[in-house]
């Protein structure tokens, strides 16, 4: 099984920082004029020097984006089905040490939540749970997918790191994709931020997207939580990870989210600054390096910034978001995982995008599904051995 850890180790932090520093304006201009950029060029495009040429970078990114994605933006929405968690991530509202009422939805409640989502026009759902295998087991998540797969166009999961066999189980129950945030690729910082719980295992989490790809997941999303470490370092490592995934499993639709840390119930304050300009540079650089990569900006960012980041390369947006469990249709009121900054409804967001000349795509998947009955004249073909 291919592993990313050796690749990550081949790029120690000193090498990345050196690469970011050892750049002048001519390097950036030369880089931006290359026909095809290499992953190493990401350091040049992320460098502080490149931020002074951000408009040029943004123009190239916009051109790439327009050619490959046009003026269409895919919408999806998170569906939190359980916030019980055994981890103690210092920055997270679901931290096991936080004293709060927690919820764990039944299949019936999950269906009600999904029906409310479908009512708003959305059809791509991201199922989320905390890390509590005793409650939110792979079988529970598979059951949730079973309960709603007839209602939606696709189901992805953002849950704890699983084994390849567990991802295969989810696939068999209609889950098409997974998202796994490494949070930070800085191993020492990771250990400090995750003092207890299964999530402490850096390598097991790091290789989860690869295991999901090996199991056959169609779409895989990754990302770092910007603001934990120097954003440029984590941005580079995220791009490296995505590039590696895409190279090893070219059939996978790979995407990167660019979440910036938001206030939560954790009272976490040790935040490294990430400016709006940094977000623009990161997205533009990603789009130039990997023109076909999915790029997601969530409701962590406010409406104005989301709208302005869109032309730089954003292909997916979350909409109609609640980060708490059971608030759409089950009357629960709980603490969300984090505060959202863009509170527009699906319709409001769609209308705003339309005014900018962009179209919200509410459905962009058709599950080839289980084998259909062969028509009478169907003549079988030889499958791969």
């Amino acid at each position: 099984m291919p592993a990313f850890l050796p690749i990550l180790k081949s790029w120690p932090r000193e090498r990345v920082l050196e690469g970011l520093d050892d750049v002048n304006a001519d390097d950036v201009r030369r880089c931006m004029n290359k026909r095809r950029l290499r992953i190493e060029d990401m350091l040049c495009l992320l460098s502080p020097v490149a931020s002074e040429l951000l408009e040029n970078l943004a123009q190239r990114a916009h051109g790439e984006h327009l050619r490959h994605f046009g003026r269409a933006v895919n919408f999806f929405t998170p569906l939190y089905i359980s916030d019980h968690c055994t981890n103690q991530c210092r920055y997270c509202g679901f931290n096991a040490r936080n004293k709060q009422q927690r919820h764990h939805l039944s299949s019936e409640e999950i269906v009600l939540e999904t029906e409310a989502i479908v009512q708003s026009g959305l059809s791509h759902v991201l199922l989320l749970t905390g890390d509590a295998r005793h409650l939110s087991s792979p079988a529970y998540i598979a059951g949730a997918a079973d309960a709603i797969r007839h209602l939606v166009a696709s189901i992805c999961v953002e849950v704890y790191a699983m084994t390849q066999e567990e991802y295969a189980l989810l696939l068999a129950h209609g889950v098409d994709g997974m998202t796994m945030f490494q949070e930070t690729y800085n191993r020492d910082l990771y250990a400090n931020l995750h003092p207890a719980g299964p999530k402490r295992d850096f390598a097991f989490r790091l290789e989860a997207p690869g295991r999901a790809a090996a199991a056959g997941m169609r779409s895989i999303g990754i990302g770092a939580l910007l603001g934990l470490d120097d954003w440029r370092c984590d941005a580079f490592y995220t791009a490296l990870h995505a590039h590696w995934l895409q190279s090893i499993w070219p059939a996978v639709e790979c995407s990167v989210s660019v979440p910036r840390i938001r206030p939560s119930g954790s009272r976490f304050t040790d935040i490294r600054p990430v400016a709006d300009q940094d977000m623009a540079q990161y997205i533009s650089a990603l789009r130039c390096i990997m023109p076909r990569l999915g790029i997601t900006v969530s409701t962590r960012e406010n409406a104005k910034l989301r709208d302005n980041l869109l032309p730089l390369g954003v292909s997916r947006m979350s909409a109609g978001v609640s980060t708490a469990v059971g608030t759409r249709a089950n009357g629960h009121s709980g603490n969300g995982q984090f505060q959202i900054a863009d509170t527009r409804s699906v319709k409001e967001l769609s209308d705003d995008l339309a005014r900018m000349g962009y179209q919200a795509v509410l459905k962009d998947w058709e599950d080839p599904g289980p084998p259909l009955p062969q028509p009478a004249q169907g003549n079988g073909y030889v499958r791969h051995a």
Partner: protein
Amino acid sequence: MDAACDDFFAIGGKNLSSRLFVGTGKYGSDALIPSICAASNAQVITVALRRVDSGGRGIMGQIPGHMQLLPNTSGARNAEEAVRLARLARAAGYGNWIKIEVISDNCHLLPDGYETVRATEVLAKEDFVVLPYMNPDLYVARSLMDAGAAAVMPLGAPIGTNRGLRTKEMIAILIDEIPLPIIVDAGIGSPSQACEAMEMGAAACLVNTAIASSSDPVGMARAFGEAVTAGRRAYLSELGPQSVRASASSPLTGFLGEKN
């Protein structure tokens, strides 16, 4: 007489007078689609089944009734998935034309020739009108023909690049050797490139990105329609021979036939 006036070509038993096929992706609004169809004068439109909402909302509600629908299997990674999607499209009432797209490399989006041939073989036997998207490879084209394809759709350049007829020499070989309509698909970035493909003898062009990503998609659709017509007329009128050198209008050997 204008040779292009009654210049039809047939696919799946249907006579088509327009040689421009259009797409439905990447537009800032699906509401543009009727204007795109009208301005381009296209008769065939491709739509990704993955984008079709069974509730009748969205794209399908925008496609004019006179258009020949060409559902495509975007998202299929192998022959089995393409076959399933084609069957779903027909079962949903979208007809028996199908553009096979089998792509298992999301970086370059190049079609998988082997899987495409396998899917074509199955679907042609099920009476689909199969138009496979392909690399312009002579052997794959022959296999597709043998498998029952109604036309072949070679790429001019990687999809979405607008880089033009980068595979021109290979497409020319297909035009010479494959007795099926050759429909140049993907990569055409400007009307002049579509015109060039038609001058070469391509049966038609499919253009989406270049129209959808322009500042005025309706104006660009019209430009492509005119360019395809112009290219076809040039092909039918047979271009004059080309030479790398200028040709003197007063030939040096003209005196040989003259009387003293």
